[in-house]
């Protein structure tokens, strides 16, 4: 339906000094915006999956860093000791480990200091649980951004996972300190640690995205997450080794995605004392991939309705 368009007025000329030929348009916003020969074109239609989404993610890549940086700097604003808290908290946790598990509990450890055994499992578990909690409330917490500005919404939960990654790295450094103090030298398997870190990141990202998207519509998940995390702590091989699981249950046990990650961490750090049950590990990795796929798909499908529902 065409609306009647009034004739342009006669009278004085509009004061434009340049004559722009749109065919020669070049995007002039510098920095991360790429330069095009042709102007950036966009078609907005209901139900149209945005082909430019992944390109947009790359274009807005700085936002990952900026949102994570914002969350971290805000934590320590107006505190007396500031960033030292980032070191102090894991340090205190480590001290408790050494005292409780090393001196008081005196669990068997096959020649590996018990604190290291537990700490190397706590490390990925802390990362996983904190990124899950942060990611699930990240969208709701940034409601003002979602309803007023466009950028790929995937960045928000991913930024929350990155924030937890920074805490993870600090705790990993403290693990190094602990190893030095206990005079424990890991072997070549430590090289594989970055791989397992990546696996942990992906394992946290999948469910994180899924829960973030679900929490927008059903706020109940806010209350479900702490329960899942607590429950997960008991069924994941953090306080114990996966070896205690009977043989015929191991495959089923590996359906828990974090099992593969924790086994991998233990294997890499503890000089191979903790064996990796290969079929279980592959299944865990598969589950991580599956969750990632489901998470991304559900997130992308519901992303269009966030601004209306949040």
């Amino acid at each position, binding site marked *: *339906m*065409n*609306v*009647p*368009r*009034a004739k*342009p*007025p*006669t*009278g*004085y000329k*509009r*004061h*434009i*000094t*340049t004559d*722009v030929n*749109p*065919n020669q*348009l070049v*995007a*002039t*916003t*510098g*920095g*991360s*915006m790429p330069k095009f020969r042709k*102007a*950036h*074109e*966009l*078609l*907005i*239609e*209901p*139900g149209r999956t945005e082909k430019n989404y992944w390109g947009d993610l790359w274009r*807005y890549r*700085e*936002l990952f860093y*900026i949102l994570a940086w*914002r969350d971290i*700097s*805000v934590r320590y*604003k*107006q505190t007396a000791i500031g960033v030292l808290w980032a070191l102090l908290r894991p340090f205190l946790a480590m001290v408790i480990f050494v005292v409780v598990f090393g001196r008081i509990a005196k669990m068997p450890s096959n020649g590996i200091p018990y604190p290291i055994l537990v700490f190397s499992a706590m490390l990925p578990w802390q990362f996983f649980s904190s990124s899950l909690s942060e990611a699930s409330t990240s969208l709701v917490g940034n409601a*003002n*951004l*979602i*309803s*007023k*500005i*466009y*950028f790929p919404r995937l960045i928000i939960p991913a930024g929350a996972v990155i924030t937890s990654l920074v805490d993870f790295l600090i705790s990993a450094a403290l693990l190094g300190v602990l190893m030095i103090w206990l005079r424990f030298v890991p072997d070549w398997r430590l090289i594989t640690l970055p791989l397992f870190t990546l696996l942990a990141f992906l394992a946290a990202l999948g469910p994180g995205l899924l829960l973030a998207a679900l929490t927008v519509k059903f706020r109940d998940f806010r209350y479900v997450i702490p329960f899942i995390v607590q429950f997960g702590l008991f069924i994941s091989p953090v306080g114990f080794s996966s070896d205690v699981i009977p043989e015929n249950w191991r495959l089923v046990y590996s359906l828990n995605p974090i099992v593969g990650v924790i086994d991998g961490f233990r294997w890499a750090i503890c000089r191979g004392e903790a064996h990796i049950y290969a079929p279980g590990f592959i299944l865990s990795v598969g589950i991580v991939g599956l969750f990632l796929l489901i998470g991304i798909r559900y997130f992308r499908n519901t992303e*269009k*309705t966030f*601004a*209306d529902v949040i």
Partner: protein
Amino acid sequence: MSSDTVISVENLGKLYTLNHRGNGQPYATLRDVIARTAVMPLKAVATKFKASVGLNGSHPQGSPFSNSVEDFWALKNVSFEVKQGDVVGIIGRNGAGKSTLLKILSRITEPTEGRIYIKGRVASLLEVGTGFHPELTGRENIYLNGSILGMSRAEVKAKFDEIVAFAEIEKFLDTPVKRYSSGMYVRLAFAVAAHLEPEILIIDEVLAVGDAEFQKKCLGKMQNVSHSGRTVLFVSHNMAAVTSLTRNAALLQAGKCVFFGETQEAVGKYLSSIQSQDSRYEAAPKPGVPSITRAEVFCSQPSAVHESGAPMRIEFDFYHPEPIPKACLSFQIVNQTQVPVLHFRAFDHPVEICRESGTTTLVCQIPRLNLNVGQYSLTAYFSDPPGGQVYEVLEGVCQFSVVILNRTSLWGWRTENCTYHEEAEWTTRPN
């Protein structure tokens, strides 16, 4: 669609479904929820029984406790085109769908039907200070806000000094933003947004905040932006800003685009839609209360059109149950941007009204009314002398339009040129 169209909107529609709670209760109390849940199985049995016997049909939704949904079209069949370099205003009453339209154009929400074609990068400013975190300092927030709006870190760094100079907060860069006054906050927020350089800029009523100085600065900056050849979409309730900045405007009414064309015409239609075009005001007298019962404008041309330069007569009828000594009446002729152009005061003239109880008719004869073209209305004040009671203030009554006839001009007549034409003599002098 020609090659220099940068935004093309076709049959855009946006549907929201509204939930209405059954039984007329806006909120469910715990007591109601418990009672409802306990009674539900019994009600289900009763409804089934009634259905089998044939007694149903009294409740349209079946159960008085169910919710009903209603479809609400925030936008319906909106179509228009914007060309490269256009500055387009979007006006309409509250709830007309302007912000929804901007949200869809900014890809924040998806349309229900229709399609939009956009050529060029869009930056939208739907709210000042989005993304500002109160704990971070001004400096950190500039980087944060700039990044969120789509500028890269390098770009923000390059424009940092300009932004700070525009916002005038050099001294407070390193204090947390929660300590800023609201004026500083808004200046900083706008300063960051003003230095975006997108091809298409979408602005939503951000001039509603801030003092006059700030608004002047913003308007100036937006004029710069429009002169540099960028396309701007501008939503505002400030008709003066819309008429001075934009060339074309879209008028939205209840989700439909009823007009797209020259700003003057759009603003005129908008104003006449919010007040009925009637050159006569009439009201019944309230017993015991002095009031204006009639105000009428007699224009030189039919249907409330007046020729500029022609004489005009304006009449008022007053009702006053008791005589009011030294009663004051004045009226202003107000133009379409709500600026009073002329003020006529009866109390400065030797004419007395409300001398006895009853009614009075007052006539004001203007020998030559040299108003510029446009839409006008009256605002009348009826009161005691200063320090006394104000009996009535009528705003926006007696609308009329002014046209210029039998006089041609090389550049034509436009509302924004001036408010009033004064007579003058032009001669040359040999030097």
